């Protein structure tokens, strides 16, 4: 195993991230229950201007169907807009790199990908997207998708508070997610990145005359601004193809830590926001502890499996600092590991390592995070998945001990269970059917070819990443093809909007019932027992759904790695 001397900064950072999340959660609870906050005097005028422009009354409370329709229309408009932008970018301004308009399938995949908070990139940013597309299309979608997720999460939580069937006003939630949370923190984050040496310029590139050979062109742009919302919004699409491994996007150990902090912030703030909003401090704890336990376990396993690759032993290469093939020299293994676990488990999907080079055990670890989607998951949606898992756990737990399934005074009935089950089952469907089609019809090509079990893992990873709205990739699959672009767009849409609809439907259903006082038959959900039960429930359900696929993929590749 590794020397422990390189671990402390990683744990200090996790603590800082969680502390930040606790503060942010309380702040967000104030914002979304219309209590006064510090930013009111600055943001009120901006918000009322946009409400006037939209022609909506922010105090109008929506039922879930109206909320959902508004959400879908908004996102559909955004996808169409960015699709057109990417298709026409060849003749739009700021096309310094001389890129062409994207073919329709690639433009479809890219616009859906950034709209669904997946940010899976089948295009190469350096050669296939203009600066104009990046700024006016993709940055816009990165803010919009994160705000959409936050809005849906907040709306679902309101279901536990209300009795009049309403779950809030979508436009107000969306606007405030941008003006009160995403934009202010992004500005601070971007300034930190600039201080730490990340490029931030409107110059398209700079050319240098290196010691080695002819001129070297270095693509540039508003990288710091991009970085901040990429990580804060759990988006994860890189300004460069190498994403956070690129020394331009993530130039030092310090920027790496800032990035991790930003990724931890909103997903881990949700349980704190939830506890404040439902006014039961104890109820956030089991959700937070369960999430954090799965997360820390994953980090530990990552460090273990990545500490040594027995397969490479025959070459005599020293692996004293861990198995670092496909890692960058400026980060220690624990720093690379924390980045990667945070990025995958928050469904950000940014990469600071080559995922295809990771040991098989580490690949299992990361796939697990995307199967669960809730440890802690993406902005807003991750918490929705935690709540859906909690409802299922309460229902199953209730059946096991013969108690009435209710949560925070609301009965969990057939309607909630139907939506929850559909969400949980849609994930394997969206992953496994396209994976099977790929191999039955031999639609995948790989470069480098690799062994068969690795090929299976790469395709499994591709669709898992898309269905979980993660966006990371294992690389060797040649994925900019008609099949992978169109199938991917469908998988991402299902993986995004089905859970979002379920969150709103469940919130709406809970909001339509009165609150019953806890009786003797109510499961105590703020207890340690329930926390443990929740962790085991999530683990067992995920294992039952996905273990066979892991056996065919990473488990079959050979030694898993580690000591």
């Amino acid at each position, binding site marked *: 195993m590794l020397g422990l001397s390189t671990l402390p900064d990683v744990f200090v950072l996790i603590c800082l991230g969680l502390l930040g999340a606790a503060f942010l959660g309380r702040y967000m609870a104030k914002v979304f229950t219309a209590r006064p906050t510090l930013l009111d005097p600055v943001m009120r005028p901006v918000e009322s201007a946009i409400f006037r422009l939209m022609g909506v009354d922010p105090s109008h409370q929506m039922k879930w169907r109206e909320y959902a329709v508004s959400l879908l229309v908004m996102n559909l408009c955004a996808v169409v807009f960015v699709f057109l932008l990417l298709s026409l970018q060849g003749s739009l301004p700021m096309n310094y790199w001389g890129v062409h308009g994207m073919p329709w399938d690639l433009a479809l995949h890219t616009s859906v990908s950034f709209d669904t908070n997946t940010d899976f990139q089948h295009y190469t940013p350096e050669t296939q997207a203009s600066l104009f597309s990046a700024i006016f299309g993709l940055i816009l979608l990165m803010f919009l998708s994160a705000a959409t997720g936050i809005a849906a999460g907040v709306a679902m939580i309101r279901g536990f508070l209300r009795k009049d069937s309403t779950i809030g006003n979508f436009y107000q939630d969306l606007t405030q997610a941008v003006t009160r949370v995403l934009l202010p923190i992004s500005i601070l984050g971007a300034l930190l990145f600039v201080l730490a040496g990340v490029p931030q310029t409107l110059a398209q590139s700079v050319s240098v005359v290196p010691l080695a050979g002819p001129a070297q062109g270095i693509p540039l742009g508003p990288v*710091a601004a991009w970085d901040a919302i990429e990580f804060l919004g759990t988006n994860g699409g890189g300004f460069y193809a190498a994403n956070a491994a690129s020394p331009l996007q993530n130039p030092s150990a310090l920027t790496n830590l800032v990035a991790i902090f930003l990724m931890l912030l909103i997903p881990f703030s949700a349980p704190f926001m939830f506890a404040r909003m439902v006014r039961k401090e104890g109820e956030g704890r089991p959700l937070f502890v369960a999430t954090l336990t799965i997360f820390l376990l994953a980090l530990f396993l990552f460090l273990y499996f990545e500490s040594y690759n027995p397969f490479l032993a025959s070459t005599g290469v020293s692996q004293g600092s861990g198995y670092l093939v496909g890692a960058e020299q400026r980060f220690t293994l624990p720093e690379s590991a924390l980045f990667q676990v945070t990025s995958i488990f928050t469904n950000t999907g940014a990469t600071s390592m080559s995922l295809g080079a990771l040991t098989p055990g580490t690949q299992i670890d990361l796939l697990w995070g995307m199967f669960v989607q809730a440890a802690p998951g993406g902005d807003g949606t991750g918490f929705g998945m935690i709540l859906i898992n909690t409802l299922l756990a309460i229902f199953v737990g209730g059946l096991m001990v013969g108690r009435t399934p209710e949560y925070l005074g609301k009965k969990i009935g057939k309607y909630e269970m139907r939506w929850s089950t559909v969400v949980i089952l849609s994930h394997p469907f969206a992953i496994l059917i396209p994976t099977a089609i790929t191999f039955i019809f031999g639609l995948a090509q790989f470069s480098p070819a690799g062994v068969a079990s690795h090929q299976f893992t790469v395709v499994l990873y591709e669709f898992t990443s898309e269905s979980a709205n993660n966006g990371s990739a294992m690389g060797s699959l040649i994925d900019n093809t008609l099949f992978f672009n169109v199938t991917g767009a469908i998988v991402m849409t299902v993986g995004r909007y089905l859970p979002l609809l379920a969150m709103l439907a469940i919130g709406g259903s809970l909001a339509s019932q009165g609150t019953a006082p806890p009786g003797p038959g109510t499961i105590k959900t703020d207890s340690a027992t329930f926390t443990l039960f929740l962790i085991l429930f999530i683990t067992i359900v995920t294992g039952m759904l996905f273990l066979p696929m892991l056996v065919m993929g990473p488990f079959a590749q050979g030694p898993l790695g580690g000591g």
Partner: protein
Amino acid sequence: MNESERPQVHPLRPAIAFLAFMLFWVSLVYPFGLSAVAPYVAELTNPAGPGGSVVAGPNGTSYSTLVGENITCAYFPGNLSSCPFRGLFWSRPSQIDYEPFLGAGGEDPYGPTDPALINQTLYYINVTGVHNVTSACGIPEDIVTDSASGLDPDISPCGALVQIPRIAYYTGEPQSVLTALVDAHIEGSHIPGVGAMYVNVVGLDVALIDLMSTPGTG
């Protein structure tokens, strides 16, 4: 606000208005505003500026301190003694030869149990001449395997030290001078306990070229 107006609003109006609002704030004000203030902010900590951190090298060259260069003879056709970089520290292997506009190359690694990984590693061990290293460093992983980005500007301190015999042979500089040079270029983050120790290859090579062009040293 305008309760009476609400029902008459076209269903697409809020969406289109919100997109316009976003275009203004997050696509115009946010990235452009930051770009305007970035030079002044960067001045506090990064004298090379937010434009890619380009600095001047020897003989009219220039380089970015952020990005590595393709300084290697690993794929040089012919004899090592005619390779222009035989007397310089080499960068890590790169699938894209350190060409940033070919960014995708960072994404095609060999799998962890791919026989091709062994072959590539053995090739690099052989060509860098580190197969018979006897120092405590062993065979440093970084100089014989790919980075994640293909642009990694750094190698480990060991990765630099094990190259010294070759460089001493081709440049005639004593090994003790080269070791001192490497030691002087070992960097880390300035915060204790954060980041790995590394050597910036281009920076080290620039210093080596300076050293050799200064008469009377060594």
